[in-house]
């Protein structure tokens, strides 16, 4: 249990997707101009990561991993190189399914951040979640925790950046730094802050 908890914390803070692993930066920067849209993106990310990582774990273990076909008499078969295509397919389908479910049962939620869902199909952080799961050979429960943790970490980071940038809209910045330039520097500063989590984990 404590292992899972520490995995959750490390996925959310130490290995924060946008700030320390540079994942999902395109949407991270594009949608953090306002806190509201940042929150929507964060929630969508948590939901999609929490679903796709365990789902891809099942697909990978059941169909693609070396030895998955032992029961069919082909223990040496290794289809793991197909995981990229399979993962992308699963992610695209999940995103579409989530969108339909939300539209049907929670129209208000769908209206407020449904627009971000289709974007997440081609989001590096989502795919990276599944790839890390394979790379680090997580078990099923670990993959659930890892998915939720990284999603939450992304949400925290993007909401914080959104809040800061909302304030900066009125700041008198040098022209060349306006928008993207200052967003990078802010992200760098936040990343410095998150780097201290890594120190905490080490000193434990």
């Amino acid at each position, binding site marked *: 249990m404590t292992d899972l908890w520490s995995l959750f914390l490390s996925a959310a803070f130490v290995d924060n997707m946008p700030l320390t692993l540079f994942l999902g930066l395109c949407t991270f920067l594009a949608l953090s101009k306002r806190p509201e849209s940042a929150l929507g993106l964060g929630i969508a990310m948590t939901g999609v990561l929490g679903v796709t990582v365990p789902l891809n774990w099942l*697909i990978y273990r059941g*169909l*693609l991993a070396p030895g998955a*076909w032992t029961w069919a008499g*082909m223990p040496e*078969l290794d*289809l793991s190189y*197909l995981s990229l*295509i*399979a993962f992308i*397919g*699963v992610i*695209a*389908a999940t995103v*579409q*399914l989530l969108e*339909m*479910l939300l*539209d*049907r049962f929670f*129209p208000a939620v769908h*209206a407020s951040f449904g627009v971000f869902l289709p974007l997440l199909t081609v989001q590096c952080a989502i795919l990276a979640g599944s790839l890390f799961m394979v790379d680090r050979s997580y078990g099923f429960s670990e993959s659930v925790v890892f998915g939720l943790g990284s999603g939450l970490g992304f949400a925290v980071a993007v909401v914080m950046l959104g809040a800061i940038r909302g304030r900066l809209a009125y700041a008198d910045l040098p022209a060349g730094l306006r928008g993207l330039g200052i967003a990078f520097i802010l992200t760098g500063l936040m990343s410095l802050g998150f780097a201290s989590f890594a120190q905490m984990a080490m000193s434990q």
Partner: protein
Amino acid sequence: MTEILLGSLVIMGLVVGLAMGLLAFRSRLLPSGDIGLDVNDRMHLRAKRGVRLLDVLHGFDIPIPAACGGKGTCGLCRVTVLGDGAGTPQATERGVLSPRERRAHVRLACQTTLSGDCAVWVPDGILSAGSGFACTVASARMLAPLIREIVLNMPDDRLSTFRAGDFMQITAPAYRLDFATLELPEPFREPWEIAGWSEMRVSSEAAVTRAYSLANRPEDAGTAVFNIRLAVPPPGRETEIPPGLVSSWLFTVNPGDSVTASGPFGDFHVRPGTREMIFVGGGVGMAPLRAMIHQELAGGTDRRIRYFYGARAAADLFYSEEFEALARQHKHFSWRPALSDPAPGDRWTGASGFIHEILQAEMTRHASPEECEYYLCGPPVMISAVLATLQRLGVEPDAIFYDDFGA
């Protein structure tokens, strides 16, 4: 070999399985079938779920104006929608509609996707206008390199409701055009050659409708006068962006041809009162302002009227003699044309500069610019520059009326 086969099978199985699963869920989750739509409590329409309100209304011959072609920028397709089926306003609508309009359930028909039953209210004039009527072209002439004046003969029962500032919708059928075949009068041939407009080609597969302001003077009763500017693509992008579908077609019509139009519609009108009126126009923003000025002067108004009109060079300036004559005739009317980029051969002695600069120069000398009413019509860039100038002059927004022809 088995590996290749099995690998392909796995991927295919996965993709097919996911697609089937999605489709199954979709049919379970999203109810299909038609939805009901009440229009003005009088008409009851049935439409497919998930289509745009604008398309439904157009499909039932309710000619909601849409100058921008359904991109959500012109704001002409405002309708009132009640019912859950219309969803919540999109981000595009929030830019166009005021908070008061949004509270009153006003939506842009082109941005509203129908997912359930709802009730719609459109202006009564539009509902009775029908799908448009056929007019014949009375005359057509080039006014400037890209501007053509087209006069349509109206059917007898039309135009009785015309007010200066109104617009009409013109529908272009499917057509193909090679601009090289266009016959241009001599003085305009050279700018066309230089800009390479003669090499453009355009084709349109379906009927397209756009809105154009009327430029009628009182003596034009029984006809509809339009100033049509050919919407050419920005320089250097001729291969990517086609020229305007309806304006290109209108450059091909000749006297005697038939044109389908509907209207007139509009809410850009002169407000009654006694305040001084300032008109600011650019390009084909001429049309509604010309109609308003003529209507006011012919009505014997004693309000002071100033007309600022901006063009690029002398070739782009049209109706100039007409307004000079009006200014000579009426002491309280003044005509202030300005060229932003006079050509060397223009022998231009009038004002040079952008029209908002000329406006600012004259109005800062005015005793009380905030006491005047402002009517603006022109390209969006001009409108925003003039609005900024007026703000600096201390003019309240409710004294400014404008139409940026939805570009």
